[in-house]
């Protein structure tokens, strides 16, 4: 395969990091637990599940329309406060985002299974600071 077109401007040693992050170019939260190719399964308007192409297991997800979810449910309904500093900025709970997204669609068995599968993904970072939520 060809040389990567961006290699000349990249420096450092890549290290796979398994934690959810906010993609401000797409207003979505992305999370992957394994660094391998996946096929995305669109569950509904707000959730896509990533399945490994090697063995089909769930290795991640994408929550879409994050700012719209926050607008509808309110920051207080989705956020958690730091336990160490009451004045610190809030963070958005990944679990609360997933539950809010689930409430937006029909309560079908397929959706319930898909949402359950992503909620079982082992997540080290369970929230995203609100200061990171800036749409481009």
């Amino acid at each position, binding site marked *: *395969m*060809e040389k990567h*077109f961006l290699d000349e401007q990249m420096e*450092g040693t890549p290290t796979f990091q398994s934690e959810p992050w906010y993609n401000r170019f*797409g207003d979505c939260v992305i999370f992957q637990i394994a660094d391998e190719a996946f096929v995305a399964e*669109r569950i509904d308007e707000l959730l896509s599940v990533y399945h490994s192409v090697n063995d089909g297991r769930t290795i991640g997800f994408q929550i879409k329309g994050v700012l719209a979810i926050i607008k509808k449910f309110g920051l207080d309904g989705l956020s958690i406060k730091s336990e160490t500093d009451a004045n610190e900025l809030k963070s958005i709970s990944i679990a609360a985002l997933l539950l809010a997204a689930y409430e937006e669609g029909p309560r079908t068995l397929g959706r319930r299974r898909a949402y359950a599968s992503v909620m079982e993904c082992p997540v080290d970072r369970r929230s995203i600071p609100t200061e990171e939520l800036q749409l481009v």
Partner: protein
Amino acid sequence: MAADYACKAIDPSAPDGPKIDVIFPGELTLRYFKYSPVRYMHLITAKYVLEHTERIFFGVREFNDGGWCYTARPDEWHIRENVVAPFPKEMVFAVYLNPNLRVYEFRAERAAKDDAACPEDWQNRYRGMTWKSTS
């Protein structure tokens, strides 16, 4: 901070006109380089799709106006770090652009049974197809 990378692609608003610059945001590509090596390699596949587009869809989000999806079927892709394999026949690679023509997502999806260059259920998930290749 990595610089933005401009890639020439079909103008989704005027497909018969001159090609336009679609941007891979430096912030995004740097993140994939640092933390997700396989997806960093999939940027090569995404660039291939923008340069060899087979279908373009519009209206990709219900809650965010605008946006585009470009699709194509590459010959190969990375399945693990340093492991290249043929791209599966039953899949299509999709590249998603926001209304500012910034790439924000790129991934394999199952291909539609009625058109292997389209993601499955394309008739319901997008507002429409704006362009298809004739070759």
